[in-house]
Structure formats: structure tokens, C-alpha cells
């Protein structure tokens, strides 16, 4: 086994397509080797609507990433999102055979199997099923049940599932580039791996990845993933609101939002005006700054409220508060609005320190793609060690099964 492994994460976002190449050292450190980015076309609300445009953009990003990192990218971890993705928690209960008192690996497998046999719509497919905890004879929060004495073993699972066709489409789109998809990851799950520290997860934290197309969230409680999901509203909606309120094209509205916009309008002096220029620098007209901010404020607040509605039940137990990440989290004043909406501590956060190009990991826009690298590393460390021959065999198996998918 090599001393370190190189992974590539691909996030097809609504605003940008991003490829991050990272090196995972055996000691757990991650070094970012290169980032390739291209503006995204043909993606709406986190989902691909135009295959060809997206493929061109992914190619652009890929070439840039390969260039900078000097790595040939064959396999990627693909981040997906979209309104169709849902999550639920399920518990599988397994009673040990009578003659047996010690929990064995088979029993754990059995409990897992039962927990996973939850009924999801037929058109849906599991994206993740994460073990939250085991419960042995009613004793909660057991991390490692094998070898313990017990009668009844329960496995508590967090299951994330999405519509098969839509997930499949994203995979197909990437395969045609051609790139091999190693795993599909729900974006916020990946982002949480680098945004939330272990302490934050233990204390309870809600991470909101506020992107252009969607607003994804993951909620951790006692170090366990408890809720996750996607609100199909994002920065594009803010831009759209601005563009329609001011009757200006989308591109200009976007620029206005990023350069001048803020979601705080209370302290804007009355009558402060902003001039709107067209592409040539010609001044088209003036608007009141407070008005722009209020339009943005209304939408931002609404989106955050939509997130709150979905996690309402768990809000009381978040010691570490809210972590805002994603492109929109850079918007001025959003932390104040989020605090207003949720009533708890709000932190704007990018990825936790990783070595490499510093400008990248500090930017909350890259939380999800960097998270993909971290996710890949975690996934690999959980895998049992396989001899190279076995790994080859497994690869072949995967290849074959992927053809029949």
C-alpha cells in the first residue's frame, strides 16, 4: 500500500464546477495539490439539466485541476445534491439466538441488515447509510458492540436516499467525460467532514451549505449524524429576486449582489443610492441601497426558515450552534440574519485547515469538494486492508456491477 493516496473530488455545483485534487497522508493529514474550477452551465438547483454543457464545463475544470496538481485524474468522488434527496433514521432490532450471549460480527451484520431494510420509495436508491450508534439491551450510544454480552442488539441508522434516476444521471454525465465515479456522496455530508470539528459534532451542530442552487444541511447530535437534507433554494433565488425587483438582467443582478449587496438594511442610511451600470460602464439608473438589501434579506431569511422548519425538532440540542458555509455564506450580514432565524450561535466557516494552497481552503465555496477528499480518506481507512490482488479483483467486480447498474 502506498504511503499516501491521491483522491479527486468533483462537485458539479449550480454556480461553479470544481475539481479538487488532494493527497491523504497515512497520518490523516490532507494536502491539497490542486484545484480546477469552471463556471457552471446547465445546472439548475443542484441538478444537471443539460448534459453537454455540463460535460464541457467539467472538462474545463478537470484540465485545470490536472494542470495545477500534475496528477492524471481517472477516478473521482462525485458530490451530488438536489431536492429529491431525503433522509431518515431507522433502527434495526436483532435478538440473539438463545444459546448465544456474546454479540458476534454476524449479529451486528444482521442488525444492520434489518435497520437497512427500511422501505423507501421504489424509485429511490440509498446514497448513504451511516451507523449512528448501537444499542445493546437498551443501553444507548454503544460504539463497538462486538464481544459485548447482550440479548438484543439494535443498530441505529441514518439513511440518505435519493431518486435513482437523478443520481444515475449525474453519474452517467461524469462517466461520459470519461471519468470513473468511485463513490457518490451527498454534498453536505462531505462538507461536514471538514467544516465541523469533532468537538462541534459532539456538542451538536447544524452545518448549512448555502450554495447557489440549493441549501444543504447536516445536523449532528452527540457526534452522530441526525438529520440531513436539501432545500432547493439558494443564491440564485436571491439573484433572481434582485433581478426581478430592479428589472435588470441576471448577470448584473448577480454582480450587484456580490459586490454591493448585504442582507442588513436597518443601518443603511436613508437615501443612500447605488448606481447601476451596464457592461460598458454607462450609468443606467440609481437605486436605494436599503431597497436592494431588503429584497435580499427577505429571500435569505425565507430560505433559512425553510431549513429551520426541517430541523426544528433538534434545534434545542445544538451546543456548537450553526456553521454556515458555501458561496452564499460570504454574503454580508448573513450571520446576523441566521442568528435572528435560529436564535443560536452562528459561525461562518470554511474548511478546517488542510495544507496546500491556502487561498483555497479558507474559502467556504470549497468546503464540499475538499470534504469529498476527506470523505474518501475516511472511507478508505474504514475499509479492511486488502492485498493488491484482491483489490484488483474487487475493482473488476465493481466494474462489472457498474455495467449492469
Amino acid at each position: 500500500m502506498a504511503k499516501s493516496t491521491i483522491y479527486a473530488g468533483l462537485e458539479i455545483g449550480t454556480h461553479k464546477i470544481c475539481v479538487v485534487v488532494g493527497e491523504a497522508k497515512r497520518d490523516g493529514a490532507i494536502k491539497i495539490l490542486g484545484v480546477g474550477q469552471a463556471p457552471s452551465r446547465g445546472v439548475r438547483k443542484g441538478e444537471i439539466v443539460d448534459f453537454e454543457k455540463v460535460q464541457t464545463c467539467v472538462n474545463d475544470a478537470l484540465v485545470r485541476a490536472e494542470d495545477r496538481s500534475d496528477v492524471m485524474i481517472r477516478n473521482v468522488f462525485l458530490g451530488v445534491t438536489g431536492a429529491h434527496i431525503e433522509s431518515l433514521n431507522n433502527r434495526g432490532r436483532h435478538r440473539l439466538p438463545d444459546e448465544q450471549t456474546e454479540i458476534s460480527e454476524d449479529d451486528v451484520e444482521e442488525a444492520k441488515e434489518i435497520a437497512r431494510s427500511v422501505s423507501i420509495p421504489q424509485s429511490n436508491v440509498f446514497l448513504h447509510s451511516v451507523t449512528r450508534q448501537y444499542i445493546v439491551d437498551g443501553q444507548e450510544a454503544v460504539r463497538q458492540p462486538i464481544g459485548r454480552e447482550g440479548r438484543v442488539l439494535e443498530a441505529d441508522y441514518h439513511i440518505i436516499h435519493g431518486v435513482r434516476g437523478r443520481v444515475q444521471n449525474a453519474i452517467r454525465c461524469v462517466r461520459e467525460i470519461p471519468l470513473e465515479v468511485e463513490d457518490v456522496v451527498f454534498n453536505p455530508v462531505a462538507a461536514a467532514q471538514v467544516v465541523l470539528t469533532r468537538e462541534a459534532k459532539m456538542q451538536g451542530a447544524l452545518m448549512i451549505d448555502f450554495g447557489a442552487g440549493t441549501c444543504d444541511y447536516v445536523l449532528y447530535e452527540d457526534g452522530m449524524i441526525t438529520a440531513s437534507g436539501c432545500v432547493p433554494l439558494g443564491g440564485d433565488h436571491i439573484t433572481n429576486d434582485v433581478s426581478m425587483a430592479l428589472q435588470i438582467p441576471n448577470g448584473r443582478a448577480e454582480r450587484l449582489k456580490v459586490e454591493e449587496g448585504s442582507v442588513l438594511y436597518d443601518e443603511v442610511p436613508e437615501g443612500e443610492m447605488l448606481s447601476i451600470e451596464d457592461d460598458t460602464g454607462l450609468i443606467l439608473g440609481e437605486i436605494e441601497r436599503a431597497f436592494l438589501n431588503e429584497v435580499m434579506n427577505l429571500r435569505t431569511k425565507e430560505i433559512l426558515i425553510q431549513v429551520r422548519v426541517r430541523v426544528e425538532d433538534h434545534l434545542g440540542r445544538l451546543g456548537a450552534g450553526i456553521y454556515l458555509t458555501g458561496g452564499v455564506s460570504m454574503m454580508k450580514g448573513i450571520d446576523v440574519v441566521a442568528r435572528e432565524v435560529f436564535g443560536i450561535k452562528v459561525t461562518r466557516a470554511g474548511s478546517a485547515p488542510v495544507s496546500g494552497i491556502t487561498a483555497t481552503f479558507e474559502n467556504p465555496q470549497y468546503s464540499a469538494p475538499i470534504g469529498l477528499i476527506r470523505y474518501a480518506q475516511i472511507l478508505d481507512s474504514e475499509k479492511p486492508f486488502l492485498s493488491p490482488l484482491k483489490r484488483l479483483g474487487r475493482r473488476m467486480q465493481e466494474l462489472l456491477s457498474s455495467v449492469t447498474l
Partner: protein
Amino acid sequence: MVEYDRSQSPEGASTAAPRICIVGIGGAGSNVVDRITLDRIVDATLVCAHTDVRVLGHSMAPVKIQLGAELMKGIGAGGDPDLGREAALFSRDQIRQAIENHDIIFISAGLGGGTGSGAAPVIAEIAKNTGALVLVVATMPFSFEGRRRLAQAEEALELLQKRADALVLFENNRMGELILPKDGIQKAFNQADQLIAQSLRAISTITITPGLVKLGLDDLTSALANANGRCLFGFGEARGQNRGSEALKKALKSPLIDSGRLLHQTKNLLVHVAGGESLTLVEVEGVMKQLGRHVPDQTHILFGLGVDAKLGDAIAVTLISSLGLNQLNAHATAAPPSEMLQPRAEAPAPAPAPAPKREIPVKKAPSPYAPPAESAPDLLFKSDEFASVPAAGDAFPLNSLQAEAAKAPTLEQPVAHVEEPPPFDTFEEPAPPPVLAPAPETARIPVRTPAAKELADAARSNSKESTLAAVVARSVTLQTEAAEAQDDLISFDEPEPEFESQPASSGSSATAVLSRKSTAESQQTFSLGEEDRGRFKDTEPSIVQGEDLDVPTWMRLKKKLRR
């Protein structure tokens, strides 16, 4: 040594196959019969009996009986079991003709309604008198259908219990969980019908087909023996490698068994394993061992084994058991509202609500309140040829006034509920904050969706000068040249009736509140045009509580303020 050929055993194929008849009564019953007709899963005479001639016309069963043709004139029983019973009595000769000369008669009915609960006991009695084995497969009504229907169903159940050799009871509330919340109601009912049809087939094959380890009707009844029990049924069939455990897994997956979770409490469990000639002992042993993990030690397992050439290389596992309603409810996570069912289940014999005149056809209806003669057998009808049939003398409640009294609260319940003040009334109470001042009538907007409420709250709390109305006003005045176009976008006139103009004179205040509420609801949905969604116009709409969130927030808020 003389070899004993099992295929030549007396109960084998050499004897004439038992004649089976399946009777579907009422709407639910005829649906099941339709399902069986379509799937052709059981080789049986299929009979559909209904009071409603239209339903009967749609039925696919080869034999159709219109119950009480002269009495009902082809109209349904309208939820009155008395009518259903009388209709069945009127047509009893026809019924007997149709079901005569069968060895086993299945009766399938949905209890709670008029025809199902009324006619099923009568038909069961007729069936019993033909000398056949009578098996009843019935469904209990959904809890949302109300207590009255539940009472009717339980009354019918009591009558059926005495007449049927075995009673398989399904809880509709649990059936609802068969399907996912997203699926259409049509699918839900189809699934339920399918499950019942499947259980019919399983029971008939188990009790009829010859087996290496044979299960009889006695085993079935003991598996189902449970006070106020509901049937747990699971069926799985699998082929190929590992087929035994696959089949068992499928059987356990049946929502009526809830991944084996419900089996933890059962006292008796009937397991039937059937396979083709390739069935091995190891496989059977594996299945039973695997099943053992789901079942506590003290459970009595009634094991049956059959070899059926028709199965080919497949293995079929059938699980049948029953669980008391209390236990079932305690277990079911998405159980029906407990207050609806729990007290019922504890009261052993619920007062049969609308049954003061049960013996009408024979006697000349003495007095509805007169207690019946002590010796009168509990027969649904008396006619010469049936008079000799003994039946347990179970008189109906001594005092029908008591029954009347018991009925009263159930009727009052919904009324009281209606009169609760609707939530948005409180919203109208506070004096309109300055934010809304520009448009005073907007103080009466019924803001109910949480998001909208929040937004409105937010708008109010910002008691600074920048008011929401001002925002909107500014948005209009902002553009000088494009003012008209913008106005078109915003004003978007919808013909919307005012609340105040609603008919407040319509009877009681409760109905007035209701009607007002419903109009408010219909107004809440925005039928904004595609152009309002801007760049999202060709994407999938993000509808939350009737609002398309792709439409700019300010625009939606404005529409609310306008009203």
C-alpha cells in the same frame, strides 16, 4: 420392503380437488374478488354479492348476486348494516344456489359499512348450513372512518365469529402502512386487496394441499386464536441460490409483520414451507433456524411442510399469526390514534349501536325496546330448513337506551371540534402594526404557513420606516420607463372573493367558520404565472405549503398584502 408412494397417499391428487368458493361482499369484498379474478391465483368459484347494482356491474366476478333487488332497488345500503342484512335475507335463496356444493367457502368483506357488515353474517350462516368449511377474511375500518363504523364492524365481527370456522382479520390502519406515504391512494387499496388475495390463496393451499408435515384447519385456527386478534400475515417466494432465507426474508418484510418485530409477542405462529421436488431438508432447517431468531422461545410454532410441483425450483414461506389489538397498537409506530381504538379494544362487547330491530323479517317487529326472549337463538333469520341449527344464545344489550347513550358522545365529538376557534382568528386580534399601515385592510390576511408567518412577523418587527409595503411601492416606482410592464407583473389581478362577503348567514356559526376557512385555503395557493418565476421558469417548482418558492419572496409577500 414395499415402498410407500407418497404421491399415492389418499389425500393426494387422486381424490377430487376440493371445490372452493370465494364470496366477496360489499365494496371491499368485491374488490378482493376482482383482484383474485384478475390474478387467477386461486382455482375457485368466484361470487360477488353487493346491494349496489352499479358496483356489481363493474365487478369482474363470473357470478354476481344483487342483494335485495326488490328491497334496495339496486341502491347501496348506505352504511346501514340493518339494510344490508335485510337485503341479504331477501336474496338468500339466490345466495344458497350460488354457493352450494362447495367444500370450502371463503367470505371476504370489509366490515364497518352497510353491505359488508350486514350481509356477511347472513351469508356466513347460509354457507355454514350448506355444510362447507367457512373461512372469513375481513378488514376492519380505518380509524378515521369514525367510531360508529368501528362499532358496526365489531358487531358484525361478533356475529361472524360464531358462524365462521376461521376468521382472518386485517386491520386497515396497518394496511395503510403497506405503502409509502407518497404513493397514490389507488395503489394503497390495490396493495391491500392484493395482500388479502394472497392470504386467501395461502390459506387455501395450506389447508388443502397434501403435505409431508400437514397443517390443517385446526392449526390455522389455533394460530389465529387470540382475543380481539388481528392477523399477521407474511408470504415470500424466492428461487435460486439461498432461496430459503430469501423467501423467509420476503415473508418477514411484509408490513403486517414489520420486519419480524411484531412476531416477538405472538403466542402461536404458523409456518408453512413449500417447495418443488428439489426442496432439501437443510434448506428447511435453515429457514426455521433463521426464523427462530425472530420468535421468542415460548411461542408455539405450528410447522407445515409441503411439496408442490407447481413451485418448480422456488421455495414459498408463509407465516400466519395473530396479535391482540392492544399489542399491535403498542407496537405500531405509526399506529392509529390510540384514543380511537384503545378504549374500544378494552371493552369486550361494544354496544351494537343501530340494532334494535334485528328480527324483523320473521316477527312482526314487536317493540324496538322490548328485550328479546331469553331462549331465542341468535339467528339472523328463521326459516324452516335452518331452524334446527343451534347457535350460541347471545342476546343483544338489555337496554337499548344505554346503547343510545353510548352513541351520543361519539356524535358530539366532531361538532365540538368544529367549534374550536380557527388559529388565524388570533392573528386578526393584534392591532395592525405600523408596517401594515398603508393598507389597513391587510390586517385581516390569514397568514398561516409558518414561513409566511415568519415573514410577516419579520416585516412587522422591523418597525423602522422601511416597511414592507414601502418596499413594494418602491419597486414599482423605481423604474420609470418600465413602469407599466412591472405593474402588469405585480398587480396580477385574480378574482378573489373577500372574506367579509362570505355567507355569514349560513346557519350556525360553526359552518360559517368552516366555509370561511375553506375559502381562505383556496385563496392561499398562488396561481402566479410562469413569468413570475424569472429564470426558474422551466425548472421543477419548489412548492412548499401551496406557495411556489421560486417566485420572488417580495412578490409573494406583496400579493398577500394586497389582499
